[in-house]
């Protein structure tokens, strides 16, 4: 697991303390029971704080799974 994945996984574990480690890689708004709109804001705020960035409105709407979030961060980091 690379550094980005590890850090995102840590944020998932912080926001969803009941999630199992092996569930994180496939976690999405559909698959995680506690991932409602409030938890979504907390999760993305946690990740924004971890990576020192801000998500815009469209990103808030679209980043609804672990895979999408990691992909976004890696692309952002490659361009950045």
């Amino acid at each position: 697991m690379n550094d980005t994945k590890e850090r995102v996984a840590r944020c998932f574990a912080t926001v969803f303390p009941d999630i199992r480690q092996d569930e994180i890689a496939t976690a999405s708004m559909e698959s995680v029971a506690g991932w409602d709109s409030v938890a979504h804001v907390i999760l993305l705020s946690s990740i924004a704080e971890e990576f020192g960035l801000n998500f815009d409105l469209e990103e808030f709407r679209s980043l609804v799974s672990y895979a999408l979030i990691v992909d976004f961060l890696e692309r952002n980091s490659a361009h950045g």
Partner: protein
Amino acid sequence: MTLNQALALINSRKGNRGNAVYSLACGFEPLHLATLLRAHLLERLPGDGNVEVQSGVYGDLRGNIESAARTAATACAVVLEWSDLDPRLGLRSSGGWSNEAKADLIANCIERYARLEAAIVALAGRMPVALAPPSLPLPPIGNTIRAQSSVLELELEQQLARFLLPVARVSGVRVVERSRIEAPVAALDARMELIAGFPYTIPFANSLAASLVDVICQPAPKKGLITDLDGTLWSGIAGEMGVEGLSWSQEHHTQTHGLYQQMLGHLAGCGVLLAACSKNEMTTAEAALARKDLFLNAESLFPVCANWGPKSASVGRILDTWNIAADAVVFVDDSPMELDEVQRAYPGMTCLAFPGKDPAAVWNLLGRLRDLFGKPELMEEDRLRQSSIRASAQVREMAAQGGSAEFLRTLEGTVTLAWQVDQADKRPLELINKTNQFNLNGLRLGESEWQRLLGRNDTIVAVASYQDKFGPLGKIAVLVGSQAGRKVRVSHWVMSCRAFSRRIEHHMLDSLFRHCDAEEIAFAFANTEKNQPLREFFAAVGVSPDAEGAYRILRSGFVDGRGALPHEVSNLTE
């Protein structure tokens, strides 16, 4: 604290027992503020128990305040923002900022304030309330450039001040000082407000949460301050330069000492006990304290200990005179050596250096003193404390010498027992929560627990006040219990140390037997580190554990062992 640190702290306490419940009433999505508030409460509360923060629904501050009042929360944080007064003052409204709208919103705010005030007053009757005034900027609706205040903005600020002033006077309401919310960044996060209805940047939310917790979880205020004289209360050494050579004024470039004197005068007015401890001849100290241009009434320093012995010995005598514990006292001296000597003798005492030559450091010291002695509200007993301490010391000394009921009768004392408690009166709960020495078991009560107790049909509460020829002591003791048949069980019993040596506790127990027509009184006694005076009283009147370890006394046994009761007793049942 960052959001991730707050979440990690909350997770670390997951599953821990001992849930303390707090309310957060706001009109926005509580989100990170609720998380950070919970984390700061966890940090502040002793032990590793858990904390729950309950919040309400979006967009209804008043409704959320009213809902909080129906809970059994320990305290409530109410966070007011401009948009709670009128949505047009927030970012999420499309109500417009026309001239008509501005006139309308001014009128609207007045009405909203009145409703909020009623809801907050009702809430404060149930639990302590920390009220944070608006922190977010107003929308740019002034006709001026931003560097210039507009009339509209000033009018809104004036309305806010008119709302806060009477609310701050309500017992139980504590208004957060906006200028003390120290955040590294601006308050408003416009992006999060539009995305999620949460208006604050996380660093600001963290600072606001910390301030709310500072206001909710205030440490017990210190009770007394012992000050050095030479180099501290004034500049100069009285024994060397003579009394007239001492100074504490701007004119002599020694104003830092004048500021300190004024601070002590202010503290005396708030009921803080003051004493002086100096390495000096007593006559020299008295002559200096007799100077008419002191900014402090020298009468408020009692006792004054001036001698050449170790300061810790003088401090010990002052503590004996005040009859309070060292950890409730602050000692101020300009000498690091004296501070060290006193600190070693009394590790629990707060010992502070007086940095007379550094105005900024003195200014910080005065602020520190405000925090050490500040309390949410002043009571009548605070005003009486200063005047009663001399009389109390005199009574204790005379009682120790003579110790007789005969002497106590010469005091012409009256014990007044109120058997009904005004729910708005905070003094009985304050006594329960700050008294250590004459304390049945050291158990403390939250505001909501207290209110619930008062609401029970079988609860007995007696609040004792006392006065004698030396003046009134105010409300000095509280006893709480319940009755079943002719048996009474006392769950809480405390008495202020100012009231010791007057046999007021004997009167209270005697009156409890009479008022309840009781045959037996049982006590929920527990040994604490500091309740030796209560244990001595129990031993004197014959309260002792039975075979099951329960502490009881029969009426006949008490009457035989109580001795003479020296005071008049007045019972108030209405």
